[in-house]
């Protein structure tokens, strides 16, 4: 986990005519049971979000609807509507069938549970 597959998603990866694509900011942390990933994808709703694991590569794609409110003109613009895409290499220690993804307040949280064999083991010490 946590090895990035590609370093850049530039304008050539754009998924629609009206928006370009950037890599979302992520936090990645590891617990004894799982790897966790949180990605900032403001403006993406569940229907426009794709998370998949294929061939050891985790891909996140989020699409946004570009444009402002109907009947209004843009007055001031500090951010552009853009799609999000980022890929990560995932180690074999992940239980691919039990990955959980949850979207809340523009943050995608993915939990990738470790295989039993990859979890740290407590070794009992026998006193003789």
């Amino acid at each position: 986990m946590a090895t990035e597959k590609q370093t850049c998603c530039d304008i050539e990866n754009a998924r629609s005519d009206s928006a370009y694509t950037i890599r979302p900011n992520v936090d990645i942390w590891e617990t004894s049971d799982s790897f966790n990933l949180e990605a900032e994808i403001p403006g993406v709703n569940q229907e426009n979000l794709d998370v998949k694991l294929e061939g050891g590569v985790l891909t996140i794609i989020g699409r946004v609807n570009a444009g402002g409110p109907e009947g209004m003109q843009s007055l001031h613009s500090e951010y552009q509507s853009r799609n999000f895409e980022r890929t990560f290499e995932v180690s074999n220690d992940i239980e691919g069938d039990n990955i959980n993804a949850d979207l809340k307040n523009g943050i995608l949280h993915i939990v990738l549970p470790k295989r039993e064999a990859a979890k740290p083991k407590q070794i009992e010490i026998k006193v003789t």
Partner: protein
Amino acid sequence: MSYNRHPISLFHDFGLLGNLFNEANRTYEKSRASSGYPKVNAYSNENTLALTAEIPGVDPKTIDISVEGNKLGIAGDIPSRVKGENESYHRGERFIGKFQRELTLPFNVDVSSASASYLNGILTLNLARREEDKPKKIEVKVS
């Protein structure tokens, strides 16, 4: 700290009104105020203004929005996760912490009709021009 990143010429629609949307950001301890967080887009028609701001990961109940005349303040805090035992971080790119912005709007806002919503990490504000600020048609008498 004075801060004015967005040239006034962007607001040609309201050019007659002068220095619109000038930043009045103050430095806020350990915040992104000085770097203009959150980023804001504004849309308008004659008497209404819609603002959108990207603030992923905040509890909308904790966003502090204040409107007074033509001054709009947006402030809040994106709390950091409580780190559990035996956790190790591989990456920490997300924005965490306090933020504050103050914007000057192109007109005085009718506070009673102002509304705010938060969806998928985007804050949207709908603001209407105060009645007495609306443009008046002046009849020209022909004598």
